[in-house]
């Protein structure tokens, strides 16, 4: 299922020789657009830093400060080193969800490759942090509380850790892709005013899914920081 009309559609032909499919090219190009927008936003917001902020700097301080508060509330003070990762993921996912509500734009998170990339980053971070923090003792996280059940628990835990990646990926992808599909179908049936309630719900879904992804990333990282019990 390919989007009917997009504003950066001509990139499909440009990226076709690289072996990228049509829907893949849409996701890649809109990710680039979003990256460009975020970089420009960050540069303009931090170009002239003032002690009494106003305008854009004020707004960005509210956003970043809000995410930081949430991080400290969920993970405690020892979660601060992960603030850049979590905040980047949250802002990127939120904006790439919201961009889909503008006609002619494609949300990059409605492609499974984007969400899988985000989930794999969280997965790798979780285990790298665990090994760094506990050393070889990190294996205790996988062995469960009872010694003679350890061989069975190990496999169950490994499957559980991999299913986290799959659930993170599919939750975000399913929500955004399902929303996109519903909008496409509604536009096909009755383009005037009928898709509007669905788009309103899309705003809600975008915020909730970005929030949930951020929260789960924090909880997973915190889980590998804790002592095994």
């Amino acid at each position, binding site marked *: *299922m390919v989007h009917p009309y997009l504003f950066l559609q001509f990139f499909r032909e440009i990226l076709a020789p690289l072996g990228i499919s049509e829907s893949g090219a849409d996701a890649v190009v809109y990710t680039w657009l979003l990256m460009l927008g975020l970089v420009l936003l960050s540069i303009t917001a931090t170009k002239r830093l003032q002690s009494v902020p106003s305008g854009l700097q004020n707004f960005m301080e509210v956003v970043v400060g809000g995410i930081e508060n949430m991080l400290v509330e*969920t993970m405690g003070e020892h979660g601060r080193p992960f603030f850049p990762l979590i905040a980047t993921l949250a802002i990127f996912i939120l904006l790439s969800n919201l961009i889909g509500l503008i006609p002619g734009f494609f949300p990059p998170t409605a492609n499974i490759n984007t969400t899988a990339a985000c989930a794999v980053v969280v997965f790798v971070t979780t285990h790298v942090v665990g090994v760094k923090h506990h050393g070889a003792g990190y294996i205790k996280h996988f062995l469960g509380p009872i010694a003679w059940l350890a061989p069975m628990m190990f496999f169950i835990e490994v499957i559980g850790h991999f299913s986290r990646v799959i*659930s993170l990926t*599919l*939750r975000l*992808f*399913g*929500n955004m*892709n*399902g929303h996109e*599909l519903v909008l496409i179908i509604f536009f096909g049936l009755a383009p005037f005013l009928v898709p509007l309630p669905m788009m309103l719900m899309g705003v809600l879904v975008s915020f*909730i*899914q970005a*929030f*949930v992804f951020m*929260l*789960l990333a924090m*909880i997973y990282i915190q889980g590998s920081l804790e002592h095994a019990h």
Partner: protein
Amino acid sequence: MEFFTMCVLAAGIGMALGTLGTGIGQGLAVKSAVEGVSRNPGASGKILTTMMIGLAMIESLAIYALVVCLIILFANPYKDVALKLAESVVKH
């Protein structure tokens, strides 16, 4: 062609069954959360966060069903086999 009829049927019935249980589960979760908030309004922030995580977990079940239905409808792995079979039936 019977293959494609069955595919559409499977997608529809699968999605309906998948959302049935998820709907009941989410309803129960929200019910308990609302009861908790009405008894102790001071804890509403914490309850909201926990409920959100729980709802997202329950919701992912329906999302799995949706993904499977989307695979059946748009990326069916057996489509080529079925088409080839139908062509060979038509030729004979």
